[in-house]
């Protein structure tokens, strides 16, 4: 909007009070200027119209004395009142003259200025014109009154011109202007004072909230309960919501730490026991113990990796670093990374798509896919009989992309299909997984507005379907 350009007038941090006063000030100053202009022109008009009446009266009283003698001479007998009545404007100079039919001055000031429009008009018997002119270095208001007269056979016009300096008019106009503008000036001062005080009052609850928050200890995330004006209720609501979320996250973190500690402690203890027994054992027993310890160690490493991955995903889910990327490329890269570790598996990736553009957090998605592949590699094989193939397929469906990963493992019990994905509730917990892998995938899917679906294949194995919206 156009008014957004006005913003640079003040820095964002300027106080509400200053902004209001500034805006109000502009409104009032504009108002004053307009009003002053209007008042000035009206006052001038009013002063002119009232003094013009006297001026006209003066000219009229002179015109009444005009007479024409038998030999065609025009005579004027200036009445005392004609000039005396003009002292209604007490300090103004007075000029007058009478012009004959030939335009020559019969009596009075012969060099008074006339304006261009003073000339006979059609058939009117009498005409009157007011105008301003400069005479004797002073602005003077003149009236010219014309009368049609008949001298012998001819008719002509006689003119009476009366003028008066503008001093009294100026004074009256000034007084009228000041009287009109003064109340507005007073109103401005009052309005600014009112704004000053009421902004102070309006801001008071915000200050109170600030004081309340400052006084709290760091773990107190209870909502703000102080009554606040409706205008800042959304802000307080948002703060409360934010604090609730923070509280919830803290809770999740606490349980996570507790569970993680528990999850790590058990395999660590087992590992220590196995190493100790390996140290004591000899021969075949020793080999078995070392192999068991190695297995435990690799399981522990995976657990730690998953915990870190989960923490990373959780962190990134809060941050939402979103950008466009190609899902197909991400899948291919994830496959490369994962397969370099366990290269004996048979993994196939099929898709008809040339590219699979989507918008989301590329790193999170890659993590999810790696987890899925890893999951399939770990749990999806039946045990070395050669047909443990893992099939990845990507296709576009319903404004989104669907990645399905089918393995040939034992699958999971139907009663557990729905709970898979909850942290530490892995269907394969007893087989070394901490249940974090699918939990991570599920969280990634949800944070992108997608979904994760698990189904047991009719013949054998598990089919994991990850659906992600494209944008």
């Amino acid at each position, binding site marked *: 909007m156009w008014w957004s350009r006005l913003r640079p007038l003040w820095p964002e941090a300027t106080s509400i009070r200053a902004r209001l006063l500034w805006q109000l000030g502009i409104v009032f100053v504009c108002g004053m200027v307009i009003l002053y202009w209007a008042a000035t022109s009206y006052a001038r008009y009013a002063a002119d119209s009232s003094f013009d009446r006297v001026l006209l009266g003066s000219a009229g009283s002179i015109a009444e004395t005009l007479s024409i003698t038998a030999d065609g001479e025009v*005579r*004027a*007998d*200036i*009445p*005392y*009142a*004609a*000039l*005396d009545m*003009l*002292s209604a404007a*007490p*300090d103004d*100079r*007075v*000029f007058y003259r*009478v012009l004959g039919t030939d335009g020559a001055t*019969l*009596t*009075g000031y012969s060099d008074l200025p006339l304006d261009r429009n003073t000339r006979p008009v059609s058939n009117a018997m009498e005409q009157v014109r007011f105008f301003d002119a400069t005479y*004797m*270095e*002073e602005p003077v208001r003149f009236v010219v009154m014309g009368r049609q007269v008949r001298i012998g056979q001819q008719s002509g016009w006689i003119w009476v011109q009366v003028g008066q300096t503008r001093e009294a008019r100026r004074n009256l106009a000034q007084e009228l202007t000041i009287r009109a503008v003064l109340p507005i000036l007073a109103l401005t001062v009052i309005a600014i004072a009112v704004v000053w005080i009421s902004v102070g009052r309006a801001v008071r609850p915000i200050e109170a909230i600030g004081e309340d928050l400052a006084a709290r200890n760091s773990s107190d995330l209870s909502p703000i309960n102080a009554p606040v004006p409706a205008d800042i209720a959304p802000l307080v609501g948002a703060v409360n919501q934010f604090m609730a979320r923070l509280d919830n996250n803290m809770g999740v973190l606490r349980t996570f730490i507790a569970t993680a500690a528990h999850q790590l402690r058990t395999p660590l203890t087992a590992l220590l026991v196995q190493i100790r027994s390996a140290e004591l054992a000899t021969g075949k027993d020793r080999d078995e113990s070392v192999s068991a310890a190695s297995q435990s160690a690799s399981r522990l490493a995976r657990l730690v990796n998953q915990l870190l991955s989960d923490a990373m995903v959780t962190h990134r889910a809060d941050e939402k670093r979103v950008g466009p990327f190609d899902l197909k490329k991400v899948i291919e890269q994830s496959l490369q990374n994962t397969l370099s570790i366990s290269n004996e598996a048979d993994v196939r990736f099929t898709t008809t798509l040339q590219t699979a553009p989507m918008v989301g957090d590329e790193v999170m998605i890659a993590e999810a896919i790696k987890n899925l592949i890893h999951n399939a590699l770990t749990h999806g094989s039946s045990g070395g009989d050669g047909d443990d193939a893992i099939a990845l397929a990507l296709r576009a469906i319903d404004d989104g992309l669907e990645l399905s990963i089918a393995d040939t493992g034992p699958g999971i019990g139907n009663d557990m299909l729905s709970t898979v994905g909850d942290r530490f509730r892995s269907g394969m917990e007893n087989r070394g997984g901490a249940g974090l892998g699918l939990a991570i995938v599920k969280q990634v899917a949800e944070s992108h507005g997608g979904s994760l679906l698990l189904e047991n294949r009719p013949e054998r194995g598990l089919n994991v379907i990850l659906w992600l919206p494209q944008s």
Partner: protein
Amino acid sequence: MTRLLQLMLLQLSAIWLAACAQQPEKASHGRDIGDVVTIYSTTDTTIFEPVIADFKKLHPDIRLNYVELDGQPLFDRFLRESRAGKPQADIVLSSAMDLQVKLVNDGYTQKHRSVNADALPTWAKWRSEIFGLTFEPVVMVANPALFSDRSLPKTRLDLVKSLRARPAFWRGRIGTYDITASSVGYLLAGQDARQSNEYGALIGAMGEADARTYQNVSALIDDIASGKVALGYNVLGSYAKRRVAQGAKLRIIYPEDYTLAVVRAAFIAKDAPNSKGAHIFLEYLMSLRGQRILATRSDLAAVREEVSGRYARLDISGAALGPLRPIPIGPGLMTYLDQQKRQRFLENWRAALDQPRQK
């Protein structure tokens, strides 16, 4: 001692002249302008003398150059000099109020603002440029010796009736201003024409009585005192009062229908050579001290009421006086200066007063 003083004065003036030489625009008038204030006035020098003397006591550094002129010549000279751009007068003081007002209206004057100016009655000033300084009733002056067997006329109507009733007594024995020659006389006649219903009748009757006309009021009073003229009409009261004070047997009559009062009006010339000095002198004239001197030493009643009460200053009780009508200073006064009006007014006046002589 005196020599020393003179020497000091000489030195001072030498220093002052040197200072002046550095200000060529001020020296261009070719005379010492710093300490001389020139006054054009219609008031007799002798009457004004005490004022000048008192002012000198107050401001020994300012010299007053007092030029006495009649109303119309004063007006003409001032106008001529002003138009030529060589103004000589700093202050103009005249009882020809109408001519004074005309000069103000036509922009030949400058403003003067002060507390003393504010203290003047509103009818005695205009535009803060012209100020009435004195207050002089216009009276009839009679020689009581000639009226021993009859009562004096108290109003204009009385006078008209008397003139008509006793033409033999009045023939050549009524005097008034020659309004064609005296500007104050013209001003008063105009005011009479405006204010009085009897004016036409009065002029007519005076014409019938073969009235004598005077340019100078002193000459008229002389003739009244000597008995040559029985009654003078429209005489400035101050002149008559002074003559009474000097011992002349005169009776001053304040007309009871109305008594006009003129003010001597002063203004400062727009391009006064010594504007500063002019302001100082005008301020002095309006001050209580100056007004008091005017009233007590010059016998010109002061315009400021603080100096003396309205009637007290006329030395008569209010009861014996009709309505007192001071002629207000204002643009209305220019009415009778209108070319056509003046011409006709004078024509009528001449016709009324000259007619009998032509018979």
